[in-house]
């Protein structure tokens, strides 16, 4: 029997893009259920997602990306899915790239597979200098901490198996979660694998990260990384590995 897959799509005020994102996933594989987590949008994000045929979990107010994504993982755990894939609600993640993420998971080679924009040397993605510096800094830091090569710690294009879903449903970092989540995975001895993928330019909306926010992001996440190593974990290792 093939695994039951759910696509978790966090969306905050993405009424223009969300419908296409949901349809694209369904077009790619009608067997994948799509759950859109509407993070307290004031626009018609929920209506657009429902119209496109997604299940919508609507947060009563804006919780931020980390808690929105975690809501999706809680849904996946509750509904007993085997695999969760995470795509952004703005359409930058291409559903036709999903097999690259799913294949290593099905072969049991990893617990979490992340799509990296930088793994492929001739990939087209060139972020602005400031962001590139930040991404490089965290990639080096996480690579050092995890003793494996990690190139894209900010990618939200991921596939997770059951143990990883269970872990993230219980404990997931709040804002700018991806870097910390990587460390969390390694602490719980879950295996992380990066595969090269291509991502699109954002279709609508603007990136949630502005300059001041980037600075806060860099400081906060660096602090979280170093403290995180020593921090008590919310979930005992054995439970997460179940």
């Amino acid at each position: 029997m093939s695994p039951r897959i759910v696509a978790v799509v966090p969306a905050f005020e993405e009424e223009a893009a969300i419908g296409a994102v949901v349809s694209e996933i369904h077009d790619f594989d009608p067997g994948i259920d799509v759950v859109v987590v509407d993070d307290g949008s004031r626009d018609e994000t929920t209506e657009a997602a429902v119209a496109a045929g997604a299940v919508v979990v609507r947060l009563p107010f804006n919780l931020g990306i980390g808690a929105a994504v975690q809501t999706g993982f809680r849904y996946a755990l509750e509904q007993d899915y085997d695999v969760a894939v995470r795509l952004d609600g703005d359409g930058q993640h291409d559903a036709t790239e999903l097999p690259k993420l799913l294949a290593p998971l099905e072969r049991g080679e990893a617990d979490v597979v992340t799509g990296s924009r930088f793994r492929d040397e001739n990939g087209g993605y060139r972020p602005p200098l400031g962001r590139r510096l930040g991404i490089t800094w965290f990639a080096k830091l996480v690579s050092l901490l995890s003793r494996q090569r990690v190139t894209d710690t900010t990618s939200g294009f991921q596939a997770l198996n059951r143990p990883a879903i269970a872990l993230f449903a219980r404990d997931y970092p709040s804002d700018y979660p991806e870097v910390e989540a990587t460390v969390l995975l390694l602490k719980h001895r879950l295996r992380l694998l990066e595969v090269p993928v291509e991502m699109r330019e954002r279709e609508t909306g603007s990136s949630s990260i502005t300059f001041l926010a980037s600075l806060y992001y860099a400081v906060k996440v660096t602090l979280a990384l170093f403290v995180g190593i020593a921090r008590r974990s919310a979930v005992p290792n054995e439970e997460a590995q179940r």
Partner: protein
Amino acid sequence: MTPVRISIAAAIGSVLLLLIVLELIRGRRLKERYALLWLATGVVLLVLSIWRGGLNTIAGWLGVTSYPPAVLFAVATLFIFLVLLHYSTVISRLTDENVDLAQRIALLEERLSRERPPPREG
């Protein structure tokens, strides 16, 4: 030595703080667990303002020779920092609980909407 007037003023201030905190607890506007640090602040400041010899001795240990009442300010400041830090931990916990509640509500609402059509708003 500490001027007597400063000791009296500090003692009155500490007693006022204690009375206000006790009254807030009595009126159920302040939970005991959040009042404990304030009560400790009031008691310590009261003891240091009445027990003049003690304040001078502590000032001597700390090398505050010219003006012992400075120790009163230092102790008061320390306690205010402790109270604020305590509040930061409380806010952090409330934030986590708030997120958990919002997520549960959203998941329950989704489940409910599948079992029966959503009620009309308005």
